[in-house]
């Protein structure tokens, strides 16, 4: 059973200087599953997500306590190579953030910084990633055009393709559809269904419906604490805690 856990957070505390943003969070993530993180704004969902690929390292004065393991290896261990962690744990951000480069170069970026030079191999991987993110047919004739010319939804799928190109094991998504229209959102959700067959997916969402549609498990955060976690269906039909119930039924004050 232990090998089955992809990521394990144990008693995780996180501080922004003096502010305790995550408190005693213990949470496991399993391969080939999508786990949704839900909770009111400011409860620490993004903070938790950004702990997993050590994105919070960029903010001065932060501190992590407890343990967070990827395949049993402590992500915050002293000998860990942050770059290596980030290659294994990809991330898609809330706002689409393609580079002001061509579509091809956006997807190839992670390979290039990884030393990929062979044009042939790059092309193959770019096509594979774009197909995987269901964008290939829309962009195959304009790979050398700027990514900034794409629509918001296309840009977000490009960002997903860009993350997939380095073949990560885990994909973190921070409200990936919050800036998109309903049709683009639906495309992203369909995509998540496909992707979870191959990756471990952790998705933050403020939409209850979205959590219900895309995730296998759901974790509810409140004020920096993990209140409860379980099968998505169970959480939405029989929440054990009053706070969870209030939140998912929209009765939150």
């Amino acid at each position, binding site marked *: 059973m232990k090998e089955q856990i992809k990521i394990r957070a144990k008693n995780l505390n996180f501080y922004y200087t003096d502010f305790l943003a995550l408190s005693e969070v213990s949470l496991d993530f399993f391969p080939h599953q999508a786990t949704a993180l839900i909770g009111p704004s400011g409860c620490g969902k993004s903070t938790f997500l950004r702990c997993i690929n050590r*994105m919070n390292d960029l903010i001065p004065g932060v501190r992590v306590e407890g343990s967070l393991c990827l395949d049993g290896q402590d992500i915050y261990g002293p000998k860990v190579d942050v770059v290596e962690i980030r*290659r294994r744990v990809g991330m898609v951000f809330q706002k689409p*953030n393609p580079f002001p480069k061509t579509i091809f170069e956006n997807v190839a970026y992670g390979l290039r*910084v990884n030393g990929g030079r062979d044009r042939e191999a790059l092309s193959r991987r770019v096509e594979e990633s774009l197909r995987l993110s269901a964008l290939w047919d829309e962009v195959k004739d304009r790979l050398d055009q700027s990514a900034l010319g794409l629509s918001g939804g296309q840009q977000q799928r490009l960002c997903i393709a*860009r993350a997939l190109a380095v073949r990560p094991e885990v994909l973190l998504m921070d409200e990936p559809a919050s*800036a998109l229209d309903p049709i683009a959102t639906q495309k992203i959700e369909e995509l998540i269904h496909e992707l979870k067959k191959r990756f471990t997916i952790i998705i933050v969402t403020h939409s209850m419906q979205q959590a219900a549609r895309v995730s296998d498990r759901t974790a509810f955060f409140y004020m920096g604490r993990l209140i409860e976690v379980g099968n998505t269906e169970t959480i939405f039909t029989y929440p054990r805690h009053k706070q969870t119930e209030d939140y998912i039924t929209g009765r939150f004050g």
Partner: protein
Amino acid sequence: MNKRFLKEKLIRAGFFVTALVSVLVLGMIMVFLFSQGLPIFDQVSVGRFIFGTQWYPTAEPPDFGILPLIAASVAVTAVSSLIAIPLGVTTAVYLAEIASPRMRGFFKPVVEMLAALPSVVIGFFGMVVFAPFLLEQLDLLTGLNLLNASIMLAFMSVPTICSISEDAIYSVPAELKEASLALGATHWQTIYRVIVPAALSGISTAVILGMSRAMGETMVVLMVAGGASLIPGSLFDPVRPMPASIAAEMAEAPFHSEHYYALFAIGVVLFLFTFLFNICADYIAGRHKQVGAATL
């Protein structure tokens, strides 16, 4: 109601007039510059003026060929850019991306103070400190030469290049930086593959403005360039850039003499150069305005 309307109109008119003042002043200077410069072309053809290699304005008969002066200006600008661009841009990258907040708090004001140094002070430094040093180290005939002037000019354009580039680098959206790091790029890879390219239009503008500053600078070249109106053959030749020529000779050129007109014509040429630089800067700044996360 009517009164308020009138007041509104008056205020608008007031602001318009104030804005007009700078336009008018610029226009007047231009008209003056051209009216005083163009008459020389009754005596000398444009081609001989620009491409003539002899500048002997007070000889009998005089020679008004400014190619040595143009060559000197271009040379000092080019050499000073070779020094100032790497220095300015690297410092900007360091300040915006690498320096700790404390280091930044120390370095930034220092660089800005460099910009506040009066050019005559830099010229003085070049004259009494750097020129003797060059003379001694390199066994030259004179320490006042192309190299000295270029280095002093580089001191003057580094702050311009650095502070504008730094602004451009600093304003690259954090999302782009995060996107790069999240893909497993190192900080260094992120800097040269994402941040610098995204800031490139700002950096180019900075470079061009810095070059424009170097080309128009007068006091420094007057003091340390050496003053010989020869087309430079080496870094150690004394030269006479256009602004130095104008400043040195204007006082002795009789009013409305050929020499006087010729100096104004040099002013016109100089103006055209810096004007071109500014057009380039505007063009580049406008062309790549859109960087970062796109609109939805």
